[in-house]
């Protein structure tokens, strides 16, 4: 039996997915039928502390970002044909935060 928290997460994910799909379909119709891979982002990449020191960054500068909200990244990956017979990769990754706002969009080159 799923908990209330689990159901809340499921609902958040469904809503975020709809936002991402709507956005991607409108901008890149070739990705409209693609089911995205989903990654939940609750914490950022954990870096070697020595690396932070080497960069000369004060830990205090990083702590100001500690309250970052969780988000989902939806990665839509496909390919499309090019007129000369080649195949172009087409990957769009859209990050949607817990307020259902698109906070980042990237596209393959």
């Amino acid at each position, binding site marked *: 039996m799923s908990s209330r928290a689990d159901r809340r997460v499921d609902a958040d994910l469904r809503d975020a997915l709809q936002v991402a799909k709507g956005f991607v379909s409108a*901008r*890149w119709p070739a990705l409209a039928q693609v089911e995205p*891979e989903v*990654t939940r*982002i609750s*914490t*950022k*990449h*954990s*870096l*070697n502390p*020595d*690396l*932070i020191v*080497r*960069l*000369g*960054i004060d830990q205090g*500068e*990083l702590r*100001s*970002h*500690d309250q*970052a909200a969780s988000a989902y*990244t939806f*990665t839509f*990956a496909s*390919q499309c044909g*090019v*007129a*000369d*017979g*080649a*195949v*172009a*990769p087409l*990957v769009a*990754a859209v*990050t949607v935060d817990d307020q259902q706002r698109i906070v*980042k*969009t*990237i*596209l*393959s*080159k």
Partner: protein
Amino acid sequence: MHLVLVPRRQLQRGYGPGYESISTALNAALSARAAANIATQIYDPEDGMPELGVAPAELTSVSLVAQLAAIAGALATRNGIIESLWIIGGPETVPFGSLPNPMRDHDGPIMSDCVYGMASAQDLLVHWPVGRTPAGGADTPDTLAKLLSLIAAAHKAGPHLYGSILGLSTARWSDVSAAVLAMAGESTENLLLAPPLCSGQLDTGRLTAAKLIYCNLHGVIGSTAWYGQSLEDTDLLPTLRPADLDGLRFDRTVVITQACFGAKLRSIGNEQTMAMALLEAGAAVIGAIGLTYGSPDPPPSESDLLAQHLLIALRSPGQRLGAAFMSAHQAMLRDLLRHQGGLDADDTKTLLEFVLYGDPAMLISL
């Protein structure tokens, strides 16, 4: 010290009698380095470095990384450091390192030389810059010999004076590319858009006059060309093909390519890749072997942000090629941490996947 990884035995095994021309060209390049006062130490991994107590290693990325760590450790006890690492030979001789791909983009593992600078998924920055002079494949010793001769000539010619910059961008990414140039302090008048720019109709005079070429174009599977795209996100159009470079010289020019697969080396059919064509024309090339990313609109992110910092670093006075490459990565990571507090999967992939084809100890500007 500037370290040169020369897999002599493997090159001899791979090229047979053809190795002689490679050896001659390598000696010329090393002499030119010495004349340019670059303190160089050569080693063959299969011999190790007995003088430092470092054992021989197989030519696998895991063994080579362990051996390099041992070399760095041994040097540290003598108050020495590795200032740069120059790998002689393509991936058929010294394989690229393989790192987990943090993105769910079906691109496979990240193939990169950054592991030979001790970068990893947790420690994203190299401890010393790494560059590579690849061959055109196992059957073409002449290519490696030619590239080494070009590097010898470049060292002899010395650092170039302040040269012009040229940007080539898809029309779709014109705003991002213009932002990259502007944030690097460069004029957006030096940005050419594709379309209207297309293969076969390039202003070759303007192209060869540039000492720094920044390409924000598409790369695809099954073609060696780099492609443009109109504002409407429609079909891709060939913008730069290896054949467009026929007869052109790019000596002591640095080319930054953000194209997917921009650093691929293996020919497609009988056509060499853009990276190999540029190297044979005398350029150094910075690009990625796999999928690359950027924001469709400003502000610059991922490979756009890296390109911006590369443009800044490569124009810094007295800079060496590898040091500029390393310093651009540091600047990008510093930016990301300050603005985001951490990294996304795409940031991580970008920081790990770009490779440098060229001699990292090359002095590139006055």
